[in-house]
């Protein structure tokens, strides 16, 4: 049969944002694929060169609408490394707690989109409703619902609001009950399992070679999580497991993210319990010295890195952002080849694509 190229995107329901996946098919079988990105390129790295250090924090929130708090935290962490600013311990605990809530919210949004992709409207409505619990908590903490603008260079913007501990523990308790229900809902669905188990195999060697990070890497049998292996902030104080599976298929990627939500619930509890009293923000200098700063964190989608170069002024000379999904999606051809066209939705959905950070 004659081979042909099919454009899935930029306006395909699968894409969740503007990007294009070109697939070459022979009948129903995929023989080649090529992602095309860049539709949402806003030049954030260039914009940042014209802004002062504190002005950049809200810009970095716009990198990913799904997990904006991780990105502004990463930015603050890399600038603190450049300036040599010490962060008070209470602020570190607040950050870790907020990031883990953000991770749960981000994974829930992924699960909602994934369920929608695979035709489970019930999964979509349930997960979006429960994501609301954590978005409400983050709203109480930061004042916004999507782009939080909460971390500051040298701490966080404000202390916890009244009764925040109580509300968070309630939310986490509720979430743990719901997670059990999701597992029954998804894994009890024959269609969901048929579209996931054994689909989209990514071997360990390929995952390592192609720079895949985050849940997709851990689903391929590499137990590597920056929170555990290169700990930053107060993660060394936290007791949690790194979710790892050896199968490397779509189901393993789903399962790793589910397990991560369980672990995040544990971390939120511990952070609230161990949080000391004290200051939550230090004064940071206006100008950064000449030199470089590096921040490296575990984003919900993988390894996020920022490399900031200072030149002694109050604006960064260069800010380089490593987006985890940008590298992960370049591995898509390797995963897709050999499967059917109908599997594209499950495979690409399982990678948790976020265009904002991908195109920057």
């Amino acid at each position, binding site marked *: 049969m004659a081979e042909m190229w099919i454009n899935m995107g930029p306006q395909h329901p699968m894409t969740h944002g503007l990007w294009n996946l070109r697939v070459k098919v022979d009948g129903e079988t995929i023989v080649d694929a090529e992602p095309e990105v860049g539709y949402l390129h806003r030049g954030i790295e260039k914009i940042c060169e014209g802004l002062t250090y504190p002005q950049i924090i809200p810009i970095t929130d716009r990198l990913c609408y799904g997990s904006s708090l991780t990105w502004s935290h990463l930015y603050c962490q890399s600038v603190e490394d450049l300036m040599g600013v010490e962060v008070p311990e209470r602020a570190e605990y607040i950050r870790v707690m907020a990031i883990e809530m953000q991770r749960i919210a981000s994974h829930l949004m992924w699960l909602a989109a994934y369920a929608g992709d695979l035709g489970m409207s019930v999964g979509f409505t349930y997960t979006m409703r429960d994501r609301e619990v954590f978005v409400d908590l983050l709203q109480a903490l930061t004042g916004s619902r999507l782009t939080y603008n909460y971390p500051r260079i040298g701490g966080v913007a404000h202390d916890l609001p009244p009764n925040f501990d109580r509300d968070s523990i309630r939310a986490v308790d509720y979430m743990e009950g719901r997670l059990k229900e999701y597992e029954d809902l998804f894994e009890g669905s024959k269609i969901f399992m048929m579209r996931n188990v054994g689909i989209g195999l990514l071997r360990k060697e390929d995952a390592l*070679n192609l*720079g895949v*990070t985050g849940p997709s890497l851990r689903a391929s049998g590499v137990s590597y999580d920056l929170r555990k292996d*290169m700990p930053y902030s107060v993660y060394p104080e936290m007791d949690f497991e790194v979710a790892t599976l050896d199968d490397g298929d779509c189901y393993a990627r789903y399962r790793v993210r589910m397990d991560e939500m369980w672990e995040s619930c544990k971390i939120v509890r511990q952070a609230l319990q161990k949080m000391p009293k004290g200051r939550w923000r230090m004064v940071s200098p206006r100008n950064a010295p000449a030199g470089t700063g*590096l921040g*490296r964190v575990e984003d919900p989608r993988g390894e996020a890195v920022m490399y900031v170069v200072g030149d002694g002024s109050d604006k960064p000379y260069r800010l380089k952002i*490593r987006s985890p999904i940008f590298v992960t999606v370049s*591995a898509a051809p*390797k995963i897709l080849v050999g499967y059917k066209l109908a599997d594209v939705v499950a495979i690409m959905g399982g990678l948790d694509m976020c265009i904002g950070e991908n195109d920057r």
Partner: protein
Amino acid sequence: MEAVSIEKAPSRIGENPEQRVLRALAESFPKTVSDGARLRPGLVRAKVDRSDIFRVCRVLKDNLGFEHLTMISAVEYDDRFEIVYHIASYQSKLLLELISTTPKDDPTVDSISSIWGGANWQERESYDLMGIVFRSHPKLERILLPKDVLYHPLRKDFKG
């Protein structure tokens, strides 16, 4: 290309992973790797001559256990371009910052995408936004900007 011939660098007693990597690099490439330093636990920096970047990366992956290329960043200074490679080792929990310099009028460097497939798109991004040319890259095309754009926006002489 001549074959790389160094033994797998064994650890010496009392040596931490950072020192081991720096020593192995200095011993294998005495002329081209310089200024090795340990910045903080788990983070090492070294400078490498751009003519040797491919061989250094080959040794890093095959002999020293650096299996993950984290990031390639290009930085423009008044007199040079710096291409900064962040390469991670999952086994020994290290991050190596490898800095290579090119002159302003010849921003070319060897592609390492045949060593780490993850470098492919990152090199295309550096080409697209900063105009660094990676020799023997399989497909050096613009990735974020449209194909008919004539400028490299992250250069300092580009003013919107």
